[in-house]
């Protein structure tokens, strides 16, 4: 009998195992007890640093997938996708779609990512996905890009462009068929600069050309352009240039400075001269001195020449004043006059740093508390203006006065990462109220804003400067959408009187 009992017990235990199958501690039962399967769409990718590796594949397990772990110690990655937590239940099929972005400061050549899948009953399976960092997906790019239309009035022009590529320029050519001109480069350097004099002759006509450049992975840059040999045009835009030619392409915005088109062939520039001896030129293109540059005729300083190779800069000899310069490009004449900082007016309604910004008064005076009560209490808050990126509570850093000119406010040495940076100048407000004091870029130029319109609700009553005052008919954007070419420190220098701001790398 005893023996029968033992056998019965053993049979029951065995039957129990047979019925329930294997199970883990959580009490899940196996369906087929097999290991999970991992079917990756690809097991290897070629990337550049900063690019994202996309791990895609299908994972299946009849017992139910518990979790997926993706691990690589060089990437400091040990991610577990907890299927139970995310979906509240296991899945028998899961479409893996996971992005990994190796940090661009890393120098390791490949990253094997181990993918481990565990099912509900404890079975595991692994697969490896390798991200190799030997790819090249970046096409060559212009450092100095020729304009689409290049207006030339002189028979000989200097044609310039420069290109760079992150891994090396395998080939570059420039071809102008009507001039029967072609130049080729096959050097393999990361940077290539083209400077060549082209003889266009005296005939007024257009010449089309094309620049082609590519790297070892055939990432290609192409640019078509037209050189238009013509008489002098009444250019829509004219810029005041007070920097060396190389600095025309290192700014983020505002260099050179757009001036007013005040009449046919007539342009008026307002400019604050900080130091004696500042050299200025006027150019209709914004990235180089050539092919047209209005500067002093070396033979007669009373007149202007358009030849960038011959002209001499106009030298400003009074410091700490505003210059008004009127030039007529048709007649080649110009005139200068000055006015003082005090004579200049800007729209700022109060001094920065003063406790002068009132909140809205309302409510009822409560003599017990000695305060206005209601939705808001009345009080003066500090008036400060800064770089606003989100809302009037998030105004940082703050502008400070330029020590030389109270109309210029500036933020120096502001650290910015590479990429897009959106902002506009705005006052800080305790309650986050908008548009008390603010400037916005003209909508058309918000990626490289040239004019900043004052659109604040309150302005200095004396401010009526025609060059920048708010005009409802002028469309304004919201944030300026700057492109920061590389991480570093930048200076924001804003002349409120002129409505002009430049953002340049800190020196």
């Amino acid at each position, binding site marked *: 009998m005893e023996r029968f009992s033992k056998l019965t017990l053993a049979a029951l235990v065995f039957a129990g195992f047979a019925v329930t199958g294997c199970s883990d501690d959580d009490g899940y039962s196996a369906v087929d007890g097999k290991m999970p399967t991992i079917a990756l769409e690809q097991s290897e990718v070629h990337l550049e640093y900063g690019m994202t590796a996309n791990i895609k594949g299908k994972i299946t397990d009849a017992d139910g997938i518990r979790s997926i772990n993706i691990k690589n110690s060089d990437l400091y990655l040990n*991610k577990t996708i907890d299927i139970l937590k*995310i979906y509240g239940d296991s899945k028998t099929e899961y479409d893996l779609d996971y992005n990994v972005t190796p940090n661009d400061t890393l120098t390791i050549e490949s990253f094997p990512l181990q993918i481990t899948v565990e099912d509900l009953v404890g079975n595991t399976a692994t697969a490896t996905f390798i991200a190799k960092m030997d790819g090249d997906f970046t096409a060559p790019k212009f450092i100095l890009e020729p304009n689409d239309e290049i207006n030339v009035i002189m028979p000989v022009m200097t044609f310039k462009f420069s290109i760079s590529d992150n891994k090396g320029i395998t080939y570059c050519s420039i071809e102008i068929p009507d001039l029967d001109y072609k130049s080729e480069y096959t050097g393999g350097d990361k940077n290539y600069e083209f400077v060549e004099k082209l003889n266009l002759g005296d005939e007024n006509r257009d010449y089309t050309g094309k620049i082609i450049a590519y790297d070892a992975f055939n990432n290609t840059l192409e640019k078509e352009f037209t050189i238009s040999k013509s008489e002098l045009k009444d250019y829509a835009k004219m810029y005041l240039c007070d920097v060396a030619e190389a600095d025309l392409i290192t700014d983020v915005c505002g260099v050179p400075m757009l001036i007013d088109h005040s009449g046919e062939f007539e342009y008026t520039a307002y400019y604050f001269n900080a130091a004696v001896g500042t050299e200025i030129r006027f150019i209709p293109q914004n990235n180089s001195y050539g092919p047209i540059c209005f500067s002093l005729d070396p033979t007669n300083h009373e007149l202007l020449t358009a030849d960038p190779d011959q002209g001499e800069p106009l030298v400003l000899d009074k410091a700490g004043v505003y210059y008004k310069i009127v030039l007529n490009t048709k007649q080649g004449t110009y005139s200068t006059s000055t006015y003082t900082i005090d004579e200049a007016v800007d729209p700022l*309604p109060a001094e920065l740093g003063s406790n002068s910004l009132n909140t809205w*008064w309302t409510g009822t005076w409560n003599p017990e508390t000695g305060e206005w009560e209601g939705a808001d209490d009345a009080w003066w808050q*500090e008036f400060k203006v800064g770089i606003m990126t989100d809302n009037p509570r998030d105004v940082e850093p703050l502008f400070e006065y330029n020590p030389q000119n109270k109309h210029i406010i500036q933020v120096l040495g502001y*650290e910015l990462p590479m990429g897009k940076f959106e902002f506009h100048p705005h006052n800080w407000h305790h309650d986050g109220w908008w548009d008390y004091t603010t400037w916005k870029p003209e909508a058309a130029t918000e990626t490289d804003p040239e004019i900043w319109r004052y659109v604040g609700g309150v302005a200095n009553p004396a401010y009526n400067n025609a060059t920048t005052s708010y005009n409802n008919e002028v469309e304004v954007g919201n944030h300026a959408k700057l492109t920061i070419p590389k991480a570093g420190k930048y200076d924001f220098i804003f002349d409120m009187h002129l409505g002009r701001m430049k953002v340049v790398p800190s020196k």
Partner: protein
Amino acid sequence: MKKIISIMLLMLLTVAAFAQNVTITGNVKSGNDNMPLIGTTIVEKGSTNGTISDIDGNYSVTVPSNATLVFSMVGFETQEISVKGQTTINVILMEDTKNIDEVVVIGYGTAKRSEVTGSISSVAADDITSFNSGNAMNALQSKINGVQISNNGTPGSSPRVIIRGVTTVNGSNPLYVVDGMPVGDNINFLNNEDIESMEVLKDASASAIYGTRASNGVVLITTKKGKKGQAKFQFTANVGISTIGDPDVAKASEYEKVYKTRYTNDKQVPAYNGIDNITDAEGTDWWESTVNKLAVTQNYNLSFSGGTDNFVYSGSFGYYRQESHYNYGWWDKFNGRLNTEYTFNKYVKLGVEFAPKLERWDDTPNLMGAAMSMDPTTAIFRYDWETISNEYSWYSRSNNNQEWNPVASLKRQTAHSNEFGLLMNPYIEIKPLEGLTFRSQFGDNARFRISDAFTPEFFIDNLEQATTSKAERNSQTWNDWNWTNTLNYQKTFADAHNLNVMVGYTMEKFSHYWLTGSREAIPNNNENLWYVSAGTENQLASGSDDFSTLVSYLGRLMYNYKSRYYLTASVRFDGSSKFPEGNKFATFPAVSLAWRVTGEEFMQNQHIFSNLKLRAGWGKVGNQSIDNSAYLSTIGTSYYTVNGQMVTGSQVSSTANTAIQWETVEDYNLGLDMGFLNDRLSATFEIYKKKTSDMLLKEANLLILGYPEWAGQIWTNVGSMEANGWELSLNWKDNVNHDFKYEVGVNISGVKNKAKDLGLSSPILTGGFNGDYIIRNESDAEISRFYGYKTLGLFQNWEDVNSYTDEHGNLLQPNAQPGDLIFDDLNNDGVIDENDKTFIGNAFPKMYMGINLGASYKNWDFSMNFYGTFGNDIFNRTRERYSGSGGQNVWAGTLEDAWHYEGQDTDIPRLSYNDANANYLTVSDWWVENGSYLRCKQLQIGYTFPQRMIKFGTLRVSASAQNLFTITKYSGWDPETAVTGSVTESGIDNVAYPNTRIFMFGVNLNF
């Protein structure tokens, strides 16, 4: 000393020389059941000589033959028997029915304790005066069950009082009634020594007789009245020292390191001003420079009473002063009181209560936060201060943050107020028939306050200056009168039916008049020119009056049959000027029943219960805490900025709701009173439910009407709240022997406050926090709960950060670094956003507890009181002081305690200038701490000098400590202060003035 001992010995010898000793034996029995009484104290009157009865009630004591023996036992009436040569004295002690027949005030009348059917708690004068405070309610902490009292330590502050939970968002303070005169919601003006008793009407069946203003409960205060007999005087003096601890903030050297580390951790160059590598000695201890370690509290009182058959009187003069822990800021009050009553004949009695007072205070500044935050590398004074004539400009601007110099701020404090007041309460009582009493009382409570303030012109920095000086004066007058007429009839029929009927009529008016004026540009800061008339620019003046009135009809019937079955029913019909025609009047009925089970025949032979009483009550009470003009649209003055100039204009300042009506609270109460062992042990258990309907809320008006947001809000009856709770009180008192007596009391209660419906206003978001909010009050949920993100600790390494992604590899916290907080993606949607917020704490406690211990041994007495709350959370904003954000000073040890290596055992995030992960800008459970605490509110030891030493009266001296210690896990400064706040915004610790530890020394002389 030798001389005193010699005199004492001589006195003892003198006593011994006058009488021979005899030994007396006897037996003590209970008059109730004729059973022996064990533990009866038998003592020779006027001495400590005595004994106690044994298990059979027998005793033996040796006393002088001319002595008087005093027989006492808890629950029995004390007897005194002269020995007169007897050697055997047997005594039968009768049950002391004083406790159950003690008279309590019930509102528009009095009743025997045994007749009370509602929930009423009483506190006697001794319990109030034993705790030294400027506000009597502070003394009630721990002593009344179901009443939550919390306060801060600011001189003159009044406590937040919540009776049995909150049922409205319109405040929580109860109605205070002094000698029948409603006096509003603050009793700071009262002299505690004048109070004879306080009764707290906790349920609606007790408080509905006060109808419209009783929704938060009613506190009835009765002042001391004269008694027939010789004039008696009492002088009390209490002097105390308040101490405050130093907050443990960083010294200069650690501050500099923390400041710089915040930048370097973010790979930025520190923008640090001041001495590099500064030593602590070179820095400034701003706390020590701003806050005094000690502050003095004083309280003196002289009272007298006496009278003849026809005339009784009682009076007092009191002075109370509390200094703040600053060199500026205090509160004092002078109180006088004269209560007289003249009985003309058996029909007519006339009385007058006359209580003038003067309160004065300098506003206590709020600079503790600034003293903790100020940059310790900054010197107090500018280096060139001697060259500056304006003494308010001698001070330094902070080197590294925007905090204003707290020492300079303290120097500029000039806000002072004087308030004169007079409370008069004349009355006449006429008893034309046996049992019928007519009483007419006209009370007037007038107050007049003048407040002056001066803001000096000064310049410390562009961001810390006043470009012009300003003088302000504010004058206010309050005059409230109340005319109460009641007719009361009491009669017992057939020795079984006891009837007490009251009907009444009251009229009340509340008036407030105010005028304020100011001018700027006073010629200089000289104190002689701190007057409005000295100003030369920007003169402003405004003033107005406001009134409200109330007229009421009331009635109450109290009936009991043979002191076993009790019925109380009351009704009040209130009409208020705050409501429009058609809704001005409302009815507030109440009814309660009680059964005194121990009065039944079948309970006479049981020995378990000495008292057993069941109570049940229901009632409705109201709330009218809204603007006087809620049903009127009003136009107010407003100021606008036009072209940068401020101009005066008008605007709609409030919008009418012509259908508005009373907020009503319906209340149910069940109670059980029990007494055991001849009432040595007593217990009370109660459960209750309070539900508000038509709760008054300010709702947004239709936007289409075009009102500005604030004026578009109108009062509406849309809300509903509910409070459910229970209370358990246990009290034990006993005499161990004739020398040693003790008592222990424990009060425990719990309440859950729930907003059933907050109308369109739901959720009500309060507690602003970096553009977000801390508290979310929503319908069908408990109120004042913290709402934010849950955290999962700190990222310990980059693997933690990079792996905290959604299932597709997108970083959940892209700006995080090791050492930053991990916010929980609660809904697992792969984004940390508003949808991941949840309730992370509850400001209101789940349970309250009061423990009261008392003992006496011979001439020594001892008492100890504890008060605590349990199950509540505190949003501890002082944890921000670990961040150093804005260059503010940090808690000492932050440099080490803030995360700075993998695996560090800390929950404090890394130091960061940018705080890109928003560790300190996000409402999360990282800020929330358990706010439970148990505090020793008072420990007192007293000694009463023997009568043989003080021939002319009695003298007691005492020493006590208030807020002696606190048992809590809360890391902030004061868990009690932290739980104060409004009903919908409780439990946020913003560094208020804490409850300080006070050591008091007192003298009490009666003659």
